[in-house]
């Protein structure tokens, strides 16, 4: 089995199971408070890590390139309360522009 299909299969099954956790298994139970807090923090932590790795991540090295301009422009759009699609378009345009000029 190829790497791609292995990932698709395992992640697909795992996600189906995760989404089914509450409705199928835990009708009226709730997570213990400390566990719930840990899991609640996973989303911000992993999203922050994704922002970092996708902005300056390379193959075993830090790479500073046009993506920085894209994230900067995207950040400005977020600060201006632009809708999600606009943020992405602005970031892509800034990245493409800087890459074209550089």
């Amino acid at each position: 089995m190829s790497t791609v299909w292995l990932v698709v299969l395992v992640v697909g099954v795992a996600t189906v199971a995760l989404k089914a956790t509450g409705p199928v298994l835990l009708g009226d139970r709730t997570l213990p408070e400390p566990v719930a807090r840990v899991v609640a923090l996973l989303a911000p932590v992993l999203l922050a890590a994704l922002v970092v790795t996708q902005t300056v991540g390379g193959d075993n090295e830090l790479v500073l390139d046009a993506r920085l301009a894209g994230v900067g422009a995207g950040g400005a759009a977020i600060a201006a309360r632009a809708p999600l699609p606009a943020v992405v378009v602005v970031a892509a345009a800034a990245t493409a522009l800087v890459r074209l000029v550089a």
Partner: protein
Amino acid sequence: MAVAATVWFFGASFGLVARAAGMGVAAPLVLSATTFAGSAQFAITSILAGSGSAVAAIAAAVLLNARYAPISISVAPLFHGPRLRRLAESQLIVDESWALSSRGDGRFDRRLLIGAGLLLYAAWVSGTAVGVFAGKAIGDPKALGLDGAFPALFLALLVPQLRSRTATQAALLGGAIALVLIPVTPPGVPIVAASTACLLGVRRDEEAA
């Protein structure tokens, strides 16, 4: 509808980038149909494109989707009937359908959750299909600046998560861990390692209490 259009747009982006990352046509479609969770799918694409290992991609994606356990528990009372039916309906839970169905008092609206979930599912899978097939015609995602668009997307998804000081501190710590590990570990590992920041965040919270 605006949310569905956004999701469709990202589905197309995912299809395009997944194709460019060498995932082919069928695998991205199957992934969208089964996983139906944007950030995890983009993380997989990014790790595989960076020649990361299957284990790193799976670990990062499963960790990213771990939030669906508590999310699905929070809406568990809305699901009735046979287990298979509850299993099928629970797959319509996604960040946006869940958020849209919140009444703001800790309870959720079943019709909104299912309705929005169906709409978003259709948008996500059809967007992916357009992305994987149009990808070849559109060309190099890098020329379009798409590689700069994804960190901005994650930043936009991150900002609403920073509702507490603990969440902000944990996010900063996670970002720092990832930054430090990028040069010394295989792609994907920094993201997984950064997840330990959520444990530190909670411990700090308990000490403060």
